[in-house]
């Protein structure tokens, strides 16, 4: 943890790290969406589309 003075803005290196962390988080969330979709299809099969209205 870096001790810093109030109002001090992020250094370019810190900004880069924050960007890569955000990107990793976005990719993880996207992967989770895909994972839930694939698991739903795998568990329910074509039956997922055959529901009584």
């Amino acid at each position, binding site marked *: *943890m870096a001790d810093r*003075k109030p109002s001090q803005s992020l250094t370019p290196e810190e900004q880069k*790290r924050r960007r*890569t962390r955000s990107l990793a988080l976005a990719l993880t969330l996207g992967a989770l969406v895909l994972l839930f979709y694939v698991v739903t299809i*795998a568990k329910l099969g074509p039956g997922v589309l055959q529901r009584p209205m």
Partner: protein
Amino acid sequence: MSTMSNSLAETQVESLATAGLSQGDVSDFFALLKPRVMFLVVFTALVGMVVSPSTVHPIVAFVSLLMIAVGGGASGCLNMWWDADIDAVMTRTAKRPIPAGKIQPGEALAFGMTLSVGSVIILGLVSNWLAAGLLAFTIFFYVVVYSMWLKRTTPQNIVIGGAAGALPPVVAQAAVTGHVALDSIVLFAIIFMWTPPHFWALALVKSGDYQRAGIPMLPNVAGPDATRFQILAYTILLAPLGIAPVALGFGGLAYAIISLVGGFGMLALALQVYRLRQGEPAMRVAQQLFGFSILYLFLLFATLLVEHGFGFFRPVFG
């Protein structure tokens, strides 16, 4: 308006600054998951799955394995959060992300808890709640029973704590079959019995490190000779247990040969560790036992994987 938003942004930066900015990179967060331990967890869990008599949809099996890996990583992360103070004084662990100042303890705690809860819930939804309960128990056992309680209080820490490391095949088989079978209990017992000789061999070499950190490892508390005796005793129990899958019918011919040869190898090295007690040869043989124990466990599980996963199973009896 723009002045207002500027001042708001400034206040946010200010509050971030006083709270202390995260210095962590993605690789630092990945290191928190103890990738090498995670590999071992995935590997043993995969074997637990392939030796089980029933099968599940490959995607369900893959996601279950992934969640077991994430749960294992989460427990490693929570262990690093709790042990940051002792990690800082041991040469082996001083460069971990928290003692190195790259990740703050609070971040590691939040990261570990999120992954723990997430992996357990997803495993329960994807496979079954018995497997999810077992995964939750594994995380709890490793973090609370081992890290928070036993590790700093008893020299038997790794014996009991080893149960957490031995559970992944049980969790994986429960994910596939929906119950806990004898096969997975035998795999659990093999890893459980393997843990003490493996870690005590390391502790004999690194006893100074553990002493500095104030961890009551067996060589520091009971002395190196008592440790050598216990290593031998556990290896005498481990070697026949390694052959048990053959007797139970899920270890084939290749497994029988590997477990016999490997078991004799472990016994020979444990005997050497017991006999050689002074100077450089004593350290060298302890290091050899540590290295060989990794190879032994890897070969046992890899052989089961090849036999069951790739159709090379040849029964020894009948």
